[in-house]
């Protein structure tokens, strides 16, 4: 059974990029969220194996979402997706229980390498 993934990003192109890459590698993208609220809802309802969590969303910061879903008991692995120069934010996410992080822009290979590492 393929691993389920929730992709959280406000950019449809980024969501598309991640989804294409992951499905090509055999993961099942079970949900997409473009803001924090839907991200938390979907994470709780879907309980995916993996969540790719963008750091900057229109309503919330990624680590805030992480904090909430961890409190809700979601056990999904979380990969922080961060822009350049957000090292402090990334560190916060890692300390809250994120499994890994990846800096945008990234290639398909970069992404899969990290996802495979986290999911293995």
């Amino acid at each position, binding site marked *: 059974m393929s691993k389920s993934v929730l992709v959280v990003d406000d950019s449809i192109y980024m969501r598309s*990029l991640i989804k294409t890459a992951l499905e090509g590698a055999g993961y099942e993208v079970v949900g997409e969220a473009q803001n924090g609220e839907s991200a938390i809802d979907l994470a709780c309802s879907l309980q995916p194996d993996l969540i790719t969590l963008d750091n900057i969303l229109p309503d919330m910061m990624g680590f805030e979402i992480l904090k909430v879903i961890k409190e809700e008991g979601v056990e999904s692995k979380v990969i922080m997706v961060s822009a350049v120069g957000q090292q402090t934010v990334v560190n916060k996410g890692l300390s809250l229980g994120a499994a890994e992080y990846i800096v945008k*822009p990234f290639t398909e290979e970069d992404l899969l390498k990290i996802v495979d590492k986290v999911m293995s």
Partner: protein
Amino acid sequence: MIKRLHNLPIRQKFAVIIIPLIVIILAFDYLQVRYHYLDYNDSIRLNEAIIVGIEINHVVHEIQKERSISSGYLLDEGASFEEKLLAQRKTTDSTINQYFIELKSGNLDDLLELHREDLDRLNTYFERIETLRGGIDEKRITSEESIDRFSDINNVALNTVIKLIDETRDKDIAQQVHALIYFLKSKEFASIERAIGTQAFSLNQLEFNLYNRFTTLVANQNSYLDAFRIIANEDFVSYYGRMVTGDVIEEIGRMREVLFNNDSLAESPAHWYEISTDKINLLKRVEDYMSDKIQTSVNEISRSSVRSFWTFLILDITIGIIAFWLMTTIVSNLLKNVSILEAFTKKISSGNVKTKVKIDTKDELGKYANTFNKMVFEIRKSHFELRKQRDKANFMYKNIYGVSLVVFENIEQGIFLLDKEFKISKFHSKAMREIFSNERISGENFASFMRPLILPRELEALEMFMRHLFNEDMDEDVVNQLNPIDQVKIHTEKDGVVTSKYIRVEFTRIFRKDKINNIMVSVSDETESILLQQHLEEAEKKKQQETERVLSILKIDPSILRGFLHNSKKMLKGISERYEKNSDDEYSDLLSFTFDIIHNLKGNALVIGMDLMGNKFHEIEESITKLQSKEVRGKDFLAILYEVDEADRMITEISDMLSKIVNIYKKLPAEGDAASNMMVVDTLESGAETISKEVGKNVELIFQNEDDVILAKQYIDPFKDIMIQLIRNSIVHGIENPEGRMSAGKSVVGRLKIEMLRDENNLIIRYSDDGKGLDMEKIKHKAVESGIVTETGLKSMEEEDLKKLIFHEGFSTADKTDKHAGRGRGMQLVSGIIAENNGSFNVSYTQGELFEMTIRFPYIDQDLLEEPAEE
């Protein structure tokens, strides 16, 4: 360690403080200069890098445009893009040329050297453009391939820019440069998006791969824009917000959705290209704005770092010079002053007080110098004063000492001082040592000094008296009345001989500042005057007594006197015999017996006019009378007996005196010249003494004349001459030396004896000595040697004749001759004189004990005692 530091000279202490400071300052200074220099260097290089980078960016921008046009040309059969492409290629080449011109101009050696590899790589990529264009012209490559090839070139170009400008040490600049780079990347993706979009709209479709690529391009474009927004400064972000907005951007969004939905791509590729280009041109304006701004601020930084470098250097050098000047001035001044003070104190300590120190500064050292000068002045003053006093004291001392010494050496009084502990002063007159026969006088306690010399009770009194000497409450005259040694007898000892002396000791107080400071003691020896006085008194008394006795004797008839003396002696003896014999008698009987006798004697004495004895007996009679009036006891007789004894002694003395008088009369010569006889004896006595002294022997001459023989006048000279010879012979030959006598068990003093005797017809003179007698063997040997007799003659000689050999002419037993013996004349002279006076002699001896010679002369009758009586 710390102690070592403290012990360093001041010069080294300064060095210890200053050298580390200088080292620290220089090191700090070096770091600062280096930092400023690096800053300055860095800003210059960054400035150049940015200029080059901007040129590269221009090239990238033109390649981006050429890439899109080339893609369109390849897809659109070239009709609508051909002209455009050619124009674009020219623009691209010119920017590349511009880049090379920039690269060659200016001083970029540092930069070129540092990025040689990157720049060379970029050049090879730029060279590929021509090949790529050939492929495009001949349509050997697809649109996608051309996009990739151009993108590769742009990628290398952008990475080169990143490397060129990635070195700045200014964090703010570095951040803005990075923002610019993210922006450029985003723009590059926008440019590729334009190319892909152009292709998609040209083909009216978007294949899967291309679709994915499109979404990735948009996603990455946004990602870089996000990064740009995060790190770029507010100015850049707001400029971007103002510029990249409006219809063009909305149109781009709409057409992107068309592409993303990928339904029917009916839009004109030229429209897409145009609006994409518009957007890219907007981006290009933002890029230029940022490039300008960065370049300006880099320029500014460069200028300011140059300025601050030089400012720092000039300030640094100026302050350094001033600090060094201040330091050397102050330290050298301090050291100079310290060494001046040091030299000064050395001079002072070596005794040169005439020196002065001069220090110009008004700091502590200057004050010390002033204080030193004052001190030295004071020292000099007191030095001078001391010297004056010393000279004065010296002068006085020499004079007083000289005078005192002369006085002390010559004064006949003992003079010294006593201090409060009664110690005798060091200086005392020379007479002290003579009076006390003692050399150790100085420093002795006076009482201890006197202890062995005086009686204990006198010493006790002296100690008591001494306690009052320093008592100022007691008048000096009163104290002196207590002086127990005002006149005292002392016993001094010198060389084992104890001498008694009478000394007078007087004490005088010596005041200094109204206090008794010392006691002057003077001692005078009064022994001679006192002894003389005593002697005179005794002599006077004795003389008077003797005169009285002699007178009392002379005025009484000698025969009556003799009878009285004889009777008195017998009677007094009778008393003592009665006492010894009848001790148990009645005392009163004994007393009356004594009284009777004494009374009788008193009467006799008075009858013959012997008042002296009469008075004595009277005294005894008085004593007895006193006893008779009371009860008599045994012990009362002792006094009587004593007095009787005294009377007896007086009678004996008178008898002695009488016989002396008789003797004098008897010695007188026949013609009344009795003195001549005495004088001969005196002459012989002194002759014997003289000779014995000269030969180192000890003799006494005894003259015995029991028969009161008086030499007739004609015999006096022969007697004297004979005796002189015999005495000489005895002393020289007969008497042994003292050692010899002692070993023979004889008394040390040799005995010579002259005895005068007489018989019916002859005057006999017997001379003897207790020497070694005659050495007959030696006499015989000498006689033969002298040629007096022959060996055979000797054997036939009688003993008496042998003895007379010594009287022969030329005989002597002495081994050498001197004035006393050895000429062989002495004994010959004796026998000659005897013969001349018709005398005879014989010699006897006991070997080792005695030599005796008896001389006889015919007696000439002259009764000298009776002659005056007859007259």
